[in-house]
């Protein structure tokens, strides 16, 4: 485009903005085309398919701004559960070649899980969800390994399924050891068995109700050439820790890549250290004192207003951590990237907190 053309475009943009102020043109466009290019990244749920009794594949048509993912990577999706926006990470499982511009994730409902149960039971096709671009390092290198081993358990199969669906043909020697309570609980069970039947994948299924949890020593028996392999592991923290120890002991820690699903368990109790990233200050505060008071006592300049929870003049993003509403004891937890906004005047620390201020 020529420079005068650009100038024209700028002028048109400015004119349209002048016509929509105080809103932006996109606030109106979002009403009609939430998935258009240039919009915040969103996706539309186009289908849902049960994989097991408590796991579903969700097929999503991402907006025009979607950039290709690398199999093994995950996306963050924002869904409204009981009217509240919740963000969670899910690995992309879809086959890039076979899909029509859609991607899919597979979500397994965990006991009391807010988002996973909502997605499995209530999320309806047609719903628009918020998305982030795919990210993550749990992927295959461009130079495919001569010998690969995948160790997964439960829903930990998902990133590996993404790799197998897209790249199994490029892996000359691949072994998958997968644990699930029973044969029926194996997510993607049929598809994995079909892959194994073609001879391209060696599949070892472990049914923990019968065989017990997998131990690294047993793994070494099942896959004797384990040190010659590059290994990708994804599953419960206990399994991953055991594998890391074993690989370290064997001196091949650099051959193991792991993906952890579960965010670090927050110690939520009474009080904690509150860190303000912009000022670099950390303030110890107890479980009964509002964060606002504790910070001010420590000399920080904080936004505030009524100091009684009605004006929202004190709202700041909680980057990570847990706070308790001193009025009703309600806990608000934030994982990195969430940026949950909290009213500091009625929130006390309920664990270590990182506040954007």
């Amino acid at each position: 485009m020529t420079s005068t053309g650009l100038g024209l475009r700028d002028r048109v943009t400015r004119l349209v903005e002048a016509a929509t102020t105080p809103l932006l043109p996109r606030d109106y466009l979002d009403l009609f085309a939430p998935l258009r290019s240039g919009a915040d990244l969103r996706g539309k749920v186009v289908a849902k398919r049960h994989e097991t009794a408590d796991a579903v594949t969700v097929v999503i048509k991402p907006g025009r701004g979607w950039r290709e993912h690398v199999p093994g990577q995950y996306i963050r999706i924002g869904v409204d559960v009981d009217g509240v926006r919740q963000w969670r990470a899910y690995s992309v499982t879809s086959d890039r070649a076979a899909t029509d511009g859609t991607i899919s994730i597979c979500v397994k409902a965990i006991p009391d899980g807010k988002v996973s149960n909502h997605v499995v039971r209530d999320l309806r096709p047609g719903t628009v969800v918020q998305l982030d671009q795919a990210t993550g390092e749990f992927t295959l290198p461009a130079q495919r390994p001569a010998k690969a081993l995948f160790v997964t358990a439960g829903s930990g199969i998902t990133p590996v399924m993404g790799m197998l669906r897209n790249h199994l043909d490029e892996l000359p020697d691949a072994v998958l050891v997968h644990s699930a309570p029973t044969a029926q609980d194996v997510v993607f069970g049929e598809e994995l068995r079909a892959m194994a039947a073609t001879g391209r994948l060696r599949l070892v299924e472990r049914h923990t109700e019968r065989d017990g949890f997998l131990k690294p020593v047993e793994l070494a028996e099942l896959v004797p050439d384990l040190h010659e392999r590059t290994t990708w592991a994804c599953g419960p923290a206990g399994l991953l820790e055991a594998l890391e120890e074993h690989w370290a002991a064997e001196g091949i820690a650099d051959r193991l890549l792991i993906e952890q699903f579960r965010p670090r368990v927050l110690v939520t109790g009474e009080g904690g250290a509150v860190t303000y990233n912009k000022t670099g200050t950390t303030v110890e505060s107890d479980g009964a004192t509002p964060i606002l008071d504790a910070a001010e006592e420590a000399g920080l300049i904080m936004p505030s207003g009524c100091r009684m929870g009605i004006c929202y003049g004190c709202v700041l993003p909680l980057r990570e951590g847990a706070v308790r509403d001193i009025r009703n004891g309600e806990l608000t937890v934030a994982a990195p990237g969430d940026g949950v906004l909290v009213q500091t005047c009625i929130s006390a620390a309920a664990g270590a907190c990182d506040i954007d201020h």
Partner: protein
Amino acid sequence: MTVLQKKSDNPVAHLSAEDVEEIGRRLDAIRQEVVDSRGADDAAYIRKVIDVQRKIELASRAVLLLSKFPPAWFIGTAGLSVAKILENMEIGHNILHGQWDWMRDPKIHSTTWEWDMASPAEQWKHSHNELHHTYTNVVGKDNDLGYGIMRVDEDQKWIPLYLAQPLWNFVNACFFEYGIAAYDLELGKNLATEERRNDPKFKAAAKQVLKKIRKQATKDYLVHPALSGPSFVPTLAANFVANLVRNLWSHSVIMCGHFPEGVETYEKTSIEGETRGEWYLRQMLGSANISGSKAMHVMTGNLSHQVEHHLFPDLPSNRYAEIAPKVKAIFDEYGLRYHTASLPKQVASAWHKVFRLSLPNGWMAATTPKNAPQQVAQLYKLTTGGPKVRRAYDRAQRAQAEQALAA
């Protein structure tokens, strides 16, 4: 209305301290019920209102492109007025209160929202949420009480200037959004001295307001008319009328909230060390509701439930209707006046107060068709006579009141 503490028949005299705290606990429980049950339906409600409002606005502005044709002008102007009212009342005001912050949707959040109003959201949140809602009806602290330009209380000394206050009030109603911007800036106070005028903080705020006004005016009075081509003038007129309608409407609704006769006001000293229960009580007696249809409630931004809104300013507005009966039950049980009436009644009552207080204390009540000539003569004297005459009148009024009380 005389401040509560000076009233002979104090409407809360029959309540014990324990009663007041019990009222506070019961109101807290009502609040908690709503907080616990906020959910997908509420989120769907506000998203629907926003969606509908934006579509009405787009459609009306599109129709106005042909505003040369009178039917298009009328439909477009009506639509735009409705859209502007919804945008200010049910959407903007309530989002800026943080009523929808719990959804954690950054697009519908008190910290990110900007509205179709002369006053920037940031400044309005300070003067409205922090000052007005915290110091509701406290004479000398709550700017909403008369917006600093009116006599809204017997205890404010009467001066002849106040005779013009009905006119002020009407002018303020027509240009309400600018009035709000002016008192969010505390223009009266800040323009008063050289030092205040030059305060960088004030200057920055004033600049921000002017910028906002310029953008708003450019949209309504330049860009939209220009896009209408041959309909330039009618479209400009349509925008002016829509803003006028919105201003008159929001002014009326807001006047109904705290102005009607019988709404209580408070002295500055009365709120020192106020407990939560006492704060609630002040809100209960300092607000008035408007009764009416569902559509009316939506168009007032549910400020028709002013009592409930002042008790729980951060609860979603669509829930006020459902808690109103429970709140009223508490009023009834504790023998308090739940102030509610239809829109025409409340507007009339508020205007009655504006007129009554534009005159010296007691003058309006004492005036009958028979004694009108003498009363007018007296008013003339009070207006032209200087402070001494007025003090004498005040003394006589007080003596009369004491006599009446003694009898």
